[in-house]
């Protein structure tokens, strides 16, 4: 395809090396985050909300939101890596410029950044996975499928982030996609309540949000009700990710090389 080679893994390695240097710092927030959520929602809100209807059965509120929290971690870490972090590397540190004077192509660099974003999403999703597993909120072994899905959808959200990075003029402008896109998804993609409790029109809107697909598929996997719907939801995420990868590669090429 577009001038991508295995050499692009060198860029991924660079990011991984930097990550390892400060791994303790990098590790703590994603580890504390799920604990905070589980504490607030499980112990706080869980007192008020008992069981939630899911596919004709009743599940505990913590079991209901656990996959949603994994999905949120994947989205946040994937999206934030290729927006704020990639922008700093590209714009302030000129790291991309330096890489481009080596046999790396712009496509190598951008693709590697997105795969790195997916990797960070995978790390965050996995930590959330382990914590929720220890709380007994996931049904094994089916729930193991969450791991590959976290990587794939991590790539989707990273690629979306990179599309914004290709167009923003300055780093403050990322507030727009965060406010108009990430926050609404966090609130209205069915992380905290079943979409069926919304009016029909709002449900239709929710099914336009990528996070809805991820929450729904992870919830089916986590609660052991794997079906065709899950496959379709994952395929939608994959198709969206693929489109965003193509857009961001060509938009970043335009941005950097004019």
């Amino acid at each position, binding site marked *: 395809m577009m*001038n991508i*080679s295995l*050499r692009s893994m*060198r*860029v991924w*390695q*660079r990011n991984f*090396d*930097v990550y390892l*240097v400060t791994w303790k710092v990098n590790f703590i927030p994603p580890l504390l985050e799920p604990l905070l959520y589980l504490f607030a929602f499980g112990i706080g809100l869980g007192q008020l909300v008992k069981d939630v209807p899911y596919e004709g059965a009743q599940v505990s509120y913590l079991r209901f939101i656990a996959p949603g929290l994994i999905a949120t971690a994947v989205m946040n870490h994937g999206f934030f890596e290729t927006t704020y972090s990639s922008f700093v590397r590209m714009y302030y*540190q*000129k*790291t991309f*410029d*330096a*890489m*481009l*004077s*080596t*046999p*790396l*192509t712009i496509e190598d660099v951008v693709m590697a950044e997105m795969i790195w974003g997916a990797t960070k999403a995978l790390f965050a999703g996995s930590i959330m996975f382990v914590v929720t597993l220890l709380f007994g909120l996931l049904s094994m072994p089916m729930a193991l499928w969450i791991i590959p899905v976290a990587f794939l959808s991590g790539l989707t959200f990273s690629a979306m982030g990179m599309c914004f990075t290709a167009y923003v003029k300055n780093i403050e402008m990322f507030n727009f996609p965060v406010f108009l896109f990430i926050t609404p998804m966090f609130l209205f993609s069915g992380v905290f309540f079943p979409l069926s409790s919304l009016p029909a029109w709002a449900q239709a809107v929710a099914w336009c949000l990528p996070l809805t697909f991820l929450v729904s598929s992870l919830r089916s996997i986590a609660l052991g009700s794997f079906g065709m719907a899950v496959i379709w939801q994952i395929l939608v995420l994959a198709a969206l990710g693929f489109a965003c990868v193509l857009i961001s590669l060509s938009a970043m090429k335009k941005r950097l*090389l*004019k």
Partner: protein
Amino acid sequence: MDIIRATDLVKTFRHAAAVDHISLRVSRQECFGILGPNGAGKTTTVKMIYCFFEPTSGKLEVLGEDARKNIRRVKEGIGVCPQENNLDPDLTVIENLRVFARYFDIVGARALSRCEELLRFVGLYGKRHSVIDELSGGMKRRLIIARSLVNSPRLLILDEPTTGLDPQARHQIWESIISLKKSGTTVLLTTHYMDEATHLCDRLVIMDKGKIVVEGSPKELIRQYAGSHVIEISPAGEAAGNYLKQKGLTFEKTPTHFFVYAQKGPEVFSDITLKFGESGCALRMANLEDVFLKLTGRELRE
């Protein structure tokens, strides 16, 4: 073999041509200079040669490859010291080199020994575990030069390599460039220091407003455009001006000085000092700066 062969190269940014139909050839083991005022198009030219910008039009061959098509192969053989520092602030000094070498697929013990060798070469071995922010400007520059050598390039591109360096470091880098050249490396150099260009370049071009104004060896250019000597007269009074005109001498006038370009410098100098006195008159050898200012004018560039 020509290392660089550019024909009718053009680079346009939003309708304005930064590089406007230039052609140049650089052969192996040559040190080729590009001089020119700010905004002349030096960096843009160099960036096309190391395949950062794709030329808007024209033909460009570097290291025998088409620079539009075989980008990776071209870049494999090039070392670049960019005008703007772009060291990786997230990595230490030696990690900067090691990670950069890895972009060229140079890894393991070979990479480490190469990086250490280069740090010794630029005198930064003692700083190898420092973070980039702790280096002085000159040290950063030296590290970038070391970085440009990790892949043992056949073509070394240096965009203002010595800007901001102390005289010691500058001379040390000059010596390095000369020794690299002896070992077969071709060097493409841009600089604002005329002494540097005179000292290092076998041939050079002076660019202005995206075009090549003149091409030649420093000696040739000086002889052709500035003669052998320059006499500086200050203040630039009317009497002296009339005298110079009357004698048919080539000269330039600035608010404070006359610059007289003369083939027979000493004779003209003694004539002038006889008439106007020694004070305020100076005779010196013509240099590249005279050529540069004569051809590109004395006005500041916007």
